[in-house]
């Protein structure tokens, strides 16, 4: 049957989505761009200040340090999370004994709120009262107080928090891989490793991209865990750009300058996700299962 014009949903179906997107995404973005050209400490009305915030941002050494730290976090968390999430996900997609029981343990962090996770790890890693103090080899290590080590501690905690979510993505994707491919490969004499690298991994390509975009954009916006775990400290050792924005805006009450940082974050997040999707051909939306 030919599809006629009338069979397609009316354009009004878009209204709720556009309304929401407009009110909670576009409007705040426009406002934040406007605020970035003003000086406002919360009293009265914002006063236009031209490009003052932007020249200050360019000269602000701490903002650039924060930006590099943000990028470092982005790379490190991706490197830690992706292989682990993929392996557990593919494993959890199988039909092994105990899989269901073990999986539910792996997914446990998903049930905890960010605040709970940050407080939990802060307590575990406390140099005086923490659980790690009782462990051999780790006893004397100050995970949250050492300005070098704390970066890796935070990467660990964030990974611990988000690996289950990405595992879930990989599990669902791995289950979509047609069983017949594996059967054919087995007949051709391919072993388990060969099957993983030539069937599973290529078919997970779009999931890797989705998960990567989520991780990259997530690193640009996540700051709650770090705020509670270290507050950006010690000193500024873990003050990533979103946290720098928060402290400038809500401790220093320099809303104009904080908005300039927010715009930088916005551009960074949008740019990254565009770059990843276009570089990988994700946007062509081609099926990976043609002919199946």
């Amino acid at each position: 049957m030919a599809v006629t014009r009338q069979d397609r949903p009316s354009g009004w179906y878009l209204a709720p989505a556009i309304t929401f997107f407009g009110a909670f995404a576009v409007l705040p973005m426009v406002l934040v761009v406007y605020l970035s050209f003003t000086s406002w400490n919360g009293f009265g009305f914002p006063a236009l200040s031209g490009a003052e915030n932007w020249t200050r941002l360019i000269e602000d050494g701490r903002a650039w340090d924060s930006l590099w730290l943000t990028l470092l976090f982005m790379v490190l968390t991706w490197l830690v999370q992706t292989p682990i999430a993929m392996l557990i996900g593919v494993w959890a997609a199988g039909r092994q004994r105990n899989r269901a029981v073990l999986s539910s343990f792996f997914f446990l962090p998903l049930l905890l709120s960010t605040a709970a996770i940050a407080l939990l790890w802060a307590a575990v890693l406390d140099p005086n009262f923490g659980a790690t103090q009782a462990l051999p080899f780790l006893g004397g290590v100050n995970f949250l107080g050492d300005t070098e080590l704390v970066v890796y501690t935070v990467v660990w905690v964030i990974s611990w928090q988000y690996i289950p979510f990405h595992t879930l993505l990989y599990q669902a994707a791995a289950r979509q891989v047609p069983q017949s491919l594996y059967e054919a490969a087995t007949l051709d004499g391919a072993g388990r490793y060969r099957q993983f690298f030539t069937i599973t991994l290529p078919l997970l390509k779009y999931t890797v991209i989705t998960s990567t975009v989520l991780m990259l954009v997530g690193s640009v916006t996540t700051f709650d865990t770090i705020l509670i775990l270290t507050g950006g400290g010690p000193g500024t050792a873990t003050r990533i750009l979103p946290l720098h924005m928060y402290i400038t805006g809500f401790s220093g009450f320099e809303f104009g300058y904080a908005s300039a940082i927010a715009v930088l974050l916005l551009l960074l997040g949008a740019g990254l996700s565009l770059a990843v999707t276009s570089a990988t051909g994700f946007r062509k939306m081609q099926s990976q299962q043609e002919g199946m």
Partner: protein
Amino acid sequence: MSLRRLTRVTTQAGALVLAGALVAACGSSGPAGGGGEGGTGQVWALEDAALNPIEEASIDRFNEGSDSGELELATFGNDPYKQRLRVALGSPNAPDLFFNWGGGNLKEYVDAGQVEDLTGLLDENPELRDAFLPSVLAGAELDGKNYGLPMRGMQPVMLFYNQAVLESAGVEVPQTWDELLTAVDTLSAAGVTPVALAGTQAWTELMWIEYILDRVGGPEVFQAIRDGEPGAWEDPAVLESLEMLRELIDRGAFGDDFASVGYDVGGASTILAQGDAAFHLMGSWEYTNQLNDSPEFVEAGDLGWTTFPAIEGGAGDPSNLVGNVSNFYSLTSSSENKEAAREYLSTALTDDQYISDLIEAGDVPPVQGIRDQLAETENGDYATFIYDATADAENFQLSWDQDLPADEATEMLTQLEQFFLGNQTPQGFVEAMSGV
């Protein structure tokens, strides 16, 4: 869908969004019925489980006995309060009376023309002025005018110590800076962290530099910095104080772990109570915290307290205190319930019932002539110590993070954290701050 149709739908949806945003903007924030002629006057205060009921009761008593109008209490958590107050002042949702910390914190609101001058009220009621401790009332004084009246207890910063630890190391309670340095060396040699410091929170580090600077340079240095006088940070006293603090840190006074010790989770207080550290410089609320968290430590008589050591040759008087002077109620200039608010301020804050309720809750209110009443309470020794220290203080300096404008305070706390970690030099600190 044709392009034209899509455009039309988008435009219509856009109009809806704008309309929605306008409605939201008009109806936003503030408890209902704020301000308004003949309406109920709004009193905003900081959330506190123990004190809010007392404040509520005081307002209820006022409402029953007054014919000038009614008041109503609304409370908020710390960070939301500061943000909300900032935006509300000057808007139709502004409260009538609002809680603040005095000093520079209040100055920002005064400079914005949002706060009513209360000097006239005090002049008309001399007995009201005389009812408060002068050093505390001065906390809400700017350029000789009064902008607020004290409404909660005083919270000066005191040097707490573990008596048992000092005894076993053979250390006397230090009266001077040099004695403190010697005590630090002796305690380090005995394998005890000399001073507990909750270094994850910069405000605990702030107390050290505040006291040292006060003893070295006196209150005038603080005032010049707060008033933004050119070159105020370059005062030689600032550099000298930072160098003294550097020496203290380098001697190992705070141990190696302070950068990851917290205060809110009971970190530094527990370290003191367990005898892993000898001293702890903290606000007067430390006593209540110890009593709640480590009662056996307090009951054994091991928790001691004293004033910050004197610094020989310094300009500051050894009786000077720093900390949270008190909290104040200030009247907004846009208030439409000024009569009721003024009557409340002039009668309710010195009311016998209100004061004895505060004392019972463990507060030390900044009013004259309550020493005997404090001495009779369960923790009378401590309460009278705080009372005497504040009554005798030549100057009571408000904590810097409240006294400086928010942007300057935030930068200063960051610099201070870096300083404690050894990532910033005394000279670098001064340069960074004078550049703000």
